[in-house]
């Protein structure tokens, strides 16, 4: 960094422009952009679209389950609906949600860089995401897929009559988007930090992105290759998962969960990072136990690779495999527990301001904790035998992924909205939406814990009558949740034109992203910033 301004790029005057107005005008200025901020918004449009698609599928599922006979849809349609819901929400919403939007927007800003390391690759990742999405939508339009998002063999390879290959190709392609985004972030964090931005001065959001990227890069290839083998097996009618030849369907499950369990951490680690930022700023205090918070995220990312077998306790794997995966699953809960305690401890002696992002963040902590605690039940082999493949599991992972990740994502969107758009969101509706979401969510998914405990299997199009009243309660909650999700869509869109203009740092937050104008100029920083202190020095 001897001469950061050799070519004079840094000295370019700002002239009051922002990344929204500078650069090539029109659609091509967006679709051909290399700017990480514009790419973040492109992703934002994509994941909002897929979230709405997935939500429609969810609504159909909940409507169908109002009656025990499942009279709204045929069994085939129902199976396609939950498969579509799973595939879209997992790969086209949750996995890219925070990393590809907030991560893309904020990572370079937070470490004091002008862009990510490989801007063109970043844009290419978005096109891969769109391409994968087109395949998946194509599969839907041609009649859908009925394998469940888990694509278990031999059902997916030899028995399903639906468009498995198209869906698998869609996920395969979007997997590359995820790999390349992870690669980009890892290299960016390693090589592009501003002078003085040491590893332990990184905001926890950056640590979260880093840990997430490691998981993306190391887990996704396994999924991609496994899905490729599924496609080949389906095409040629022969392969290593085929029991007719002595192949092993459990091998598929091992490969699949080797990715898909770490994928849970791809979804939730970024949410933890967002929550840490939101809480410190609202409390105006240093985060409690910064280093423990950073290390616990890496620990989750690493141990998360060794627990996949807990999805397979009743699959027919050996008793001893069950024992090993069980203890590791308990251990991976420790760093998550540390994080919850640290967030709560951060509140101590704070100066807490309850704006909407803080309400979202507190909601995240509560729901994540409930999801995590019920995860312990599933880590205990003897209990998992009864609970796995029931609604208990469905409730558990929705608490983590929807209660956790979506709450944090929306909290983050509100928090950084002024930075991204230059406008303030309206506080009143935002607070109301956050509270409604919390209640709607619990009303939707808490009954599902009870359903699972009472033995209702998941993926049932019709069910025995005693389960009805809990299903009705859950569906009623889902309608509240739907309203709560539509609200931000409306008032945030409204604020784009009508919202009050935001200054550079409306929340008085620390962090380099708040030192540049809102919205930031294309090159982010006029001069490479020099960092002299830790990330959360709220009281000096």
């Amino acid at each position, binding site marked *: 960094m001897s001469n950061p301004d050799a070519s004079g790029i840094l000295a370019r005057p700002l002239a009051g422009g922002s990344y929204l107005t500078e650069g090539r005008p029109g659609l091509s200025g967006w679709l051909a952009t290399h700017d990480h901020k514009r790419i973040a918004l492109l992703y934002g449009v994509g994941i909002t679209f897929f979230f709405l698609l997935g939500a429609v599928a969810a609504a159909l599922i909940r409507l169908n389950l109002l009656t025990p006979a*499942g009279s709204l849809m045929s*069994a085939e349609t129902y*199976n396609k609906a939950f498969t579509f819901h799973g595939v879209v929400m997992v790969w086209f919403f949750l996995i890219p949600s925070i990393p590809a939007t907030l991560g893309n927007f904020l990572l370079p800003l937070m470490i004091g860089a002008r862009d990510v390391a490989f801007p063109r690759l970043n844009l290419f990742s978005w096109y891969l995401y769109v391409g994968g999405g087109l395949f998946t939508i194509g599969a839907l339009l041609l009649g859908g897929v009925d394998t469940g998002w888990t694509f*278990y063999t*031999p*059902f997916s390879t*030899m*028995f399903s009559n639906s468009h498995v290959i198209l869906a698998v190709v869609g996920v395969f392609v979007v997997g590359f988007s995820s790999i390349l985004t992870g690669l980009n972030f890892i290299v960016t964090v390693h090589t592009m930090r501003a002078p003085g931005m040491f590893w332990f001065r990184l905001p926890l959001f950056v640590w979260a992105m880093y840990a997430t990227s490691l998981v993306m890069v190391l887990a996704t290839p396994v999924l991609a290759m496994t899905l490729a083998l599924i496609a080949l097996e389906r095409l040629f009618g022969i392969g290593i998962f085929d029991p*007719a030849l*002595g192949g092993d*369907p459990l091998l598929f499950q091992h490969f699949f969960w080797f990715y898909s369990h770490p994928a849970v951490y791809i979804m939730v680690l970024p949410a933890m990072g967002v929550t840490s930022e939101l809480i410190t700023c609202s409390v105006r205090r*240093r985060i*409690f*136990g910064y280093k423990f918070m950073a290390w616990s995220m890496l620990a989750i990312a690493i141990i998360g690779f060794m627990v996949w077998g807990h999805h397979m306790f*009743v*699959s*027919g794997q050996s*008793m001893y495999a*069950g*024992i090993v995966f*069980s*203890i590791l699953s*308990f*251990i991976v*809960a*420790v760093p998550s*527990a*540390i994080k919850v305690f640290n967030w*709560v401890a951060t*509140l101590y*002696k704070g*100066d*807490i*301001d*309850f704006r909407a992002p803080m309400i979202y963040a507190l909601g995240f*902590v*509560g729901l994540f904790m409930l999801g995590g*605690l019920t995860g*312990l039940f599933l880590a*205990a*082999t*003897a*209990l998992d*035998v*009864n609970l*796995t*493949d*029931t609604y208990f599991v469905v409730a558990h992972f929705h608490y983590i992924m929807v209660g956790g990740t979506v709450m944090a994502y929306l909290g983050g969107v509100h928090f950084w909205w002024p930075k991204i758009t230059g406008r303030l969101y309206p506080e009143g509706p935002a607070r109301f939406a956050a509270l409604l979401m919390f209640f709607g969510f619990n009303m939707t998914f808490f009954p599902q814990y009870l359903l699972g405990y*009472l*033995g209702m*299997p*998941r*993926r*049932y*199009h*019709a*069910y025995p009558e005693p*389960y009805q*009243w*809990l299903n009705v309660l859950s569906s009623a909650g889902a309608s509240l949740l739907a309203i709560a999700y539509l609200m931000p869509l409306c008032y945030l869109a409204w604020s784009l034109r009508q919202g009050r203009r935001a200054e550079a740092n409306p929340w008085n937050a620390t962090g380099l992203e708040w030192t540049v104008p809102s919205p930031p100029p294309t090159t982010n920083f006029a001069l490479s910033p020099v960092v002299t202190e830790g990330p959360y020095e709220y009281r000096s």
Partner: protein
Amino acid sequence: MTPLRQASSVAPGIDALFDAMLALSAVVAAGVFVAMTVLCIRYRRGSAADRHGAGQHEFGIELAWTLIPFGLFVGLFAWSIGLWRRLQTPPSDAQTVYVVAKQWMWKTQHANGQREINALHVPLGEPIRLLMTSEDVIHSFYVPAFRVKQDVLPGRYTQLWFTATETGRFDLYCAEYCGSDHATMRGEVDVLPPAEYARWLRAHAVQSLASRGSQLFRQLGCSGCHGSQSSVHAPDLSALYGSTVALSDGSHVIADDRYLHDSIMLPAREVVAGYAPIMPSYQGHIDEEDVLALMAFLKSSDGGPSHEQP
């Protein structure tokens, strides 16, 4: 809604662990929620609370809430593992019932040959071991009132055991998604008092599984090579079950259920030492129920085929 019944010998133990974890989780969750609420009220913006001197002894606190959960988790793990081992190890006196799953029904078959569809009659208080396989995709045998569940796979056997402790009818579900009519792949386990169960067995008496196997053994031409008077050089199958078999690649296997199944369906996979791999595969020619019958015959107490008169 009626509370879930507790109708097997393992259910009370599992429920005790569940209740303990529920209590522990409730304490932790309540603690965190109360702490959050109290702190949020006390340190809300504008309150007069003293805010000096935060952030001492951080390391000790962190260590405490790393190690205490860890200790608790190890304890829960140990508790659960005890139950798990019990769930995974059927008692040696358990009576075997065969289960074949297919899209979308459960076919069960008792040792005496009684067959049922989407139903299973079992005696009260006696350990039952289910030996299960699938003809197509993966299914999962789940009886919530017994707290047992086990996936049922094509091409291999899995087992599950329980001792029913309450008479009555209990729901049986398929818990692993298996295609269009997954949700209707349900049945009932009917637990009868032993005397009544014996009556039921008598009322439905048919040819025993082993004797049906013996019939198949001749019909399918097995006896042509494996029969005691056959001129073909094929291994003798008498008293095979449970013995150790030397294979042509120098290894040894125990002749268990899996071995017998694979020797019929994938004969070239493990060839007995000293024999040519000439046996044809029966895959696609016979279904899993026939394999179970053949196996019952090979395992039968009269010693298997060599004692049969050709």
